[in-house]
């Protein structure tokens, strides 16, 4: 096995879709010799990317997994029980969307990859120089298409992988740019004699003279074959796939699998959120919490103030009873406002602002393969993303509730003075008369609980499969609705349980 990087033994691969299984590969027996630089060619939609994602361990856990038959051995590790964890540092993939973490600088991207591969971050400069990015801009957003590809190569090399997988590295580049990337990849390949490189491409001319062979996906026969370096695609190889690749499968079974997968994903999100509570990246957690508390504070305070002020004003104005009745009215208004209405409103505002933002950010990261990239670097995306999310929301929600209550009190004070000339002392006395320590504990408790649950929902929806930008938008929509529903339910249940 030492001379084969990838061995397929009676290997079969099929997509599971509603009502049928779409057969991609069937009975493949092939050994890809180690240390070679191969192109991976075949008609579009033939399953090249699926094979690559399978090799990189990027199977989407929230969807019905592709059916795999036979055995697949990569670098001596069998895939019989899923992606072998021992391979994590040895396989790197450059995906079509490069998955660059766009909140970090290009250099920080490489440094993170180095750190996660247990190598010195000081090597980043060398890697950037190697791909010609010594003078790159500081922001990912300002990188050109070619620069992004180069940076992705540099980041992939950070872990000095033994198997480097690339998905269309030259797509969208002009011929000279494509050739430059091809040269870069070949150079990187030659640097490490142990390395095997497999590049999915439709642009064989760019790689002309640089290949050790071509892995051809024969769509018609649903098999793989290895060709020599001088391979030219035939019309049969590039022909669109035949339609009859589907075999019947029980629709009920598929539905059941999908249902179970989705239910499992829901539980996994919850379990993960609980498991990730201990913060590893303290700085990240603190920053996220601070952002979640401070940024929406003025907005939430305004909302709380309007609610408290209006409630007080109309309570006093619509009940023109003077004397002891005013303080009685204020006592009731204060309790209802501070214990029920303002916390609820703060929760809604929180969902509209923080939850929507977080879901959009997560969804975009998922959509642009940033989460997949983190996964390939050996990082636990949940550690980097979910822990700060949970903390920021479980802390941010109570903090914002307090902010809203304080604002409501001040607005109530002004409204009471305006409506019936209530002095400040009398107002505060009446407003807080019915509020006990237990009320405060209940309010903070339900805010923290709904914050936690909203974070779970946000993660679940944001980090779910994203095939398009529409999926991201849908996830944001759902995060807001689910967040508000959670806030409403948590408040209703807690309030009912406490005060009924």
């Amino acid at each position, binding site marked *: 096995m030492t001379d084969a990087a990838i061995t397929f033994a009676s290997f079969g691969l099929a997509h599971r879709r509603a009502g049928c299984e779409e057969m991609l590969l069937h009975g493949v027996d092939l050994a890809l010799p180690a240390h070679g630089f191969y192109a991976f060619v075949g008609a579009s939609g033939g399953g090249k990317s699926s094979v690559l994602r399978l090799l990189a361990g990027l199977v989407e856990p929230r969807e019905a997994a592709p059916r795999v038959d036979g055995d697949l051995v990569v670098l001596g590790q069998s895939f019989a029980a899923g992606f072998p964890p021992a391979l994590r540092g040895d396989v790197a993939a450059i995906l079509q969307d490069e998955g660059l973490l766009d909140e970090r600088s290009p250099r920080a991207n490489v440094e993170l990859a180095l750190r996660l591969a247990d190598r010195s971050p000081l090597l980043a400069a060398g890697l950037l120089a190697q791909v010609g990015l010594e003078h790159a801009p500081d922001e990912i957003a300002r990188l050109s298409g070619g620069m992004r590809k180069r940076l992705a190569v540099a980041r992939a090399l950070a872990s000095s992988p033994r198997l480097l997988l690339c998905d269309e590295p030259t797509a969208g580049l002009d011929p000279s740019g494509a050739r430059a990337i091809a040269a870069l990849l070949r150079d990187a390949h030659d640097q490490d004699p142990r390395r095997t490189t497999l590049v999915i491409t439709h642009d064989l001319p760019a790689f002309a003279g640089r290949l050790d062979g071509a892995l051809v996906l024969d769509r018609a026969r649903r098999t793989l074959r290895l060709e020599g370096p001088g391979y030219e695609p035939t019309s049969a190889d590039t022909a669109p796939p035949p339609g009859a690749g589907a075999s019947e499968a029980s629709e009920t079974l598929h539905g059941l699998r999908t*249902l*179970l*997968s*989705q*239910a*499992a*994903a829901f*539980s*996994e999100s919850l379990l993960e959120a609980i498991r990730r509570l201990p913060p590893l990246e303290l700085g990240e957690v603190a920053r996220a919490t601070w952002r979640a508390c401070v940024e929406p504070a003025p907005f939430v305070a305004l909302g709380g103030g309007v609610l408290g002020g209006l409630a007080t004003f109309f309570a006093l104005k619509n009940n023109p009873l003077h004397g002891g009745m005013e303080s009685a009215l204020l006592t009731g208004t204060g309790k209802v406002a501070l214990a029920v209405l303002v916390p609820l409103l703060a929760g809604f505002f929180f969902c509209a602002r923080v939850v929507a933002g977080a879901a959009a950010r997560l969804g975009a990261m998922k959509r642009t393969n940033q989460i997949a990239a983190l996964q390939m670097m050996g990082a636990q995306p949940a550690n980097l993303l979910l822990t700060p999310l949970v903390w920021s929301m479980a802390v941010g929600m109570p903090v914002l509730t307090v902010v809203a209550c304080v604002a409501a009190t001040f607005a109530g004070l002004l409204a009471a003075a305006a409506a019936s000339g209530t002095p400040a002392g009398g107002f505060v006395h009446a407003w807080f008369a019915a509020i006990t320590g237990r009320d405060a504990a209940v309010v903070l408790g339900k805010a923290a609980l709904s914050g936690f649950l909203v974070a779970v929902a946000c993660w679940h929806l944001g980090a779910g499969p994203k095939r398009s930008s529409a999926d991201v938008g849908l996830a944001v929509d759902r995060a807001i609705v689910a967040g508000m529903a959670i806030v409403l339910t948590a408040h209703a249940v807690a309030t009912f349980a406490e005060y009924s």
Partner: protein
Amino acid sequence: MHRLRYLLGLLTLLAAALGGLWLQRALRNLDEQPGVALQVEFREARGLRPGAIVRHRGVAVGVVRAVALSPDGDKAVVQVLIEPAAAAHACVGSAFWIVTPRFGGLADGLSGLDTLVRDAYVAFATPSPRGSPLPPGSLITGRERPPTDSESLEPASHGDLLMTLLVPENHGLRPGSPVVHRGVATGDVRSVALAADGSHVEVALRIAREHRATVTDKAVFWIARPQLSGALLSGFTVQDAASLLSPFVGYHVEPGAGVLVPDGHRAAAAANRPDFELAPVPASAVKSAPAVAKPATGNDGVVVVRVVYAAVEKDTFSPDDDIRRAGSGLLYVDRSGRAVVITARSLVDASYTEPDGYGEPEIADEQIKVVLPGGAVLRAGRVWVDPDASDLAALVLDGAPPDLVGTAADRLAFADDLVSPQAPGIVRRVGPDGTPLAPVAIGNTALQPEALGAVFIGDGKARAVVVAADRAAVTDGAASLVNVVWLHRVPAELRPQGL
């Protein structure tokens, strides 16, 4: 790997299903709040809505669940739910009525005015003594108007005269109607009921203790109705004009006529107000201030008081037992000025009499009251019991008046120079209101009821206290009481100076 995920999915669905089931049950339980559901029928349920409150003694103890017509349409059926804590107060015989604004005539005035600004509500009252609690689902016939509230009558207190007046016809008397003597209310009507054979009406009366002495067997009772008498020329006199608003029972007795009546006295009322001339105020009343009632000391200077004892014996395996005992005791003032009562220990110490088959009996809520001859009731505490386990105990009165008159020291004999119990002597006891009963000889078996602690007087001096011959038998009420404990067991510090 994926099998595990499917398993996790299955577990999630299972948990969701269980959670849903639990929530559904919780919601159903929420609907079926604990409590006793009752149905009350009214002729009409005007103003009553679901959610209205049910009150008992003004306290919200339940809620109206539904208001519906009876199947035959003749009644309105109100479903009420009484909270568990208050369910025991809704008993057989409880009266349910709907509280709405109501004009009860000149005497009763307006009631239910709170429902002018609030919703109507259901109220119920439970007569005392109460019946057994209503079982859930009971169908009760509600009243159309509030019951004439015997509930609001102040309870008869100790020493009040409780008697029955038989009248040919009830002219509007109700529980709470006053009983009037010389224009002063001396008591009230407790209940009005038709005699079993329908021949007359029985009116239960309470005369307050301080007016007891105004009722003798010569007293004439009548139901007051306004009466006009006189002639055109001499002018008219309206008698009992106050009865225009509210009828009352009047009575008259010539001063000094007749003897006082005991509780349970029955008297027939005159059909009309008897014609009598009120005597002028006696001259003696003008001369001297009314005599202060002196404590009745009996004719021998020995002060015997009534001792009442109450306690609860806590049982592990059976309901707690209430212990109620009453008897007598010897009152005197000891050397340090305390009012001391010497009595039988079996009267005032349940731990002495209760069987202790399972270890020490647990006695709780002990209360000892002493009724002085003047009628005052004082609390007393046990300060001493005979260490030799003879049936003797000493009490000290709490808050005794400074001018308390006890047995004079020369009427007490703590010495050992005993006379034989068979020696000539008498036993002195007191009745329920603290007044002395006629002395009896010690061998008299009629002595038995409530004679614990009665004082044996021999040779003119109080010498001993009547106790139970068998202390365990006190519990059963079958004690043979003709045994005495001599006073020489009382320690010196509880005796008067020099004795």
